[in-house]
C-alpha cells in the first residue's frame, strides 16, 4: 500500500481537514469560527492551513464584511478526494472494519 499522504497525516492538519470535510459541500467557513471549533491558536491554524493551501487541498476566499476582512475556507475537490483516500487507507490499515463516513 502507498504511504499515507504526508500533507494530511499530521494530527493538526487531519483535524482541520476532517472539520472542513464535515461542512456541507458548497459551504465555506470563516476562519474565526473554524478556529473556535478546533480550539487552536490563530497562528497555529494559519501555519497548518498554509500547508494545506500549498497542496491545493484547501481553497481560501478573502473578502470583506463591512470594513473588516474575513477569510473563508473550504476543502477543494482535490482536498476532499485526498481526505477520502486517506481515511480509506487508515481503515484498510486497521483491518477494514471502520465505520463508513
Amino acid at each position: 500500500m502507498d504511504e499515507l499522504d504526508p500533507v494530511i497525516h499530521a494530527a493538526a492538519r487531519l483535524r482541520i481537514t476532517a472539520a472542513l470535510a464535515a461542512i456541507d459541500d458548497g459551504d465555506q467557513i470563516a476562519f474565526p469560527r473554524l478556529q473556535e471549533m478546533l480550539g487552536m491558536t490563530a497562528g497555529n491554524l494559519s501555519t497548518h492551513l498554509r500547508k494545506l493551501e500549498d497542496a491545493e487541498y484547501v481553497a481560501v476566499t478573502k473578502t470583506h464584511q463591512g470594513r473588516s476582512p474575513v477569510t473563508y475556507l473550504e476543502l477543494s475537490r482535490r482536498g476532499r478526494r485526498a481526505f477520502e483516500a486517506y481515511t480509506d487507507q487508515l481503515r484498510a490499515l486497521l483491518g477494514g472494519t471502520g465505520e463508513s463516513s
Partner: protein
Amino acid sequence: MQSEPGSSSHPRDDHDDDQPLDAAAMLAIVDDERRSMEKLTTSTVPVYYYVWGVAWLVGYLLLWMSWTESASPVHIPGVIAVPIFAALIVAGAVISAVVGIRSNRGIRGNSQFVGTVYGFSWTILGVAAAALGVAMINAGMPPEVAALYFPSVYAFVLAALYLAGAMLWGSIDQLVIALIVAFTGSVAPFFGAPDNYLAMSLIAGGALLVGGVVATVHNRRA
C-alpha cells in the same frame, strides 16, 4: 447555543501536532471532528422544540381557560390570556430567529441559503394564514368559527415547515412531530371551540416538548 470549543475530547494543541499518531488515533480524530461539526448544526434543534412547545402548551391552555364554556376549573379573563398567548408566540419567533442566525454564523454557501429561506418561510406563511383569517372574518366568519380556523391553520404552517425540515436535514424527529401536529390540526376542530384549544395545547404542545427531550437525548449520544 453557546459555543463550547473545549467540550469534546479532541487532542488539542497539547502535543506536537505536526506529528502523526497511530492509525486508530488518527481515525478517532476524523470521527471526533465530524461529530463536533454535526453538533454545530444539531445542538440548536432542541431549542426550537422547547420554545414552541412551551408557547403552544401554555398559550393554548390559557386561551382554553379564558372561555366561559370551557370545562376549566379555573377561569382566566381573556384580557390576560390573549396578550400572554401573543407574547409567547412573538417570543418564540424572535428566539427562533436569533438562535438560527447565531448557529449559522461564520458559515456561508448553500446551507446559508437553505437556512435563510427556511427562516423566512415561517414569517411568509404565518402572515399569509393571518391575512386569510382576517379576510374570512371580514366576509362574515363568526368568532366561534375563527376560533377553529386560527389554531388549525397555524398547526398546518408548523407541520408544513417541519416536513420541509425533515426533508432538508433528514430528521425523523421532525417528520414525526409534523405528522402529529398535522393530525391535531385536522381533528381538533371537530371538538368545537374552545376544546380545540385544549387539544392543541396538550397534543401539539406536548409533542413538541417530547420532541425537545428526544432531540436532547440524540445530541448527548452523538
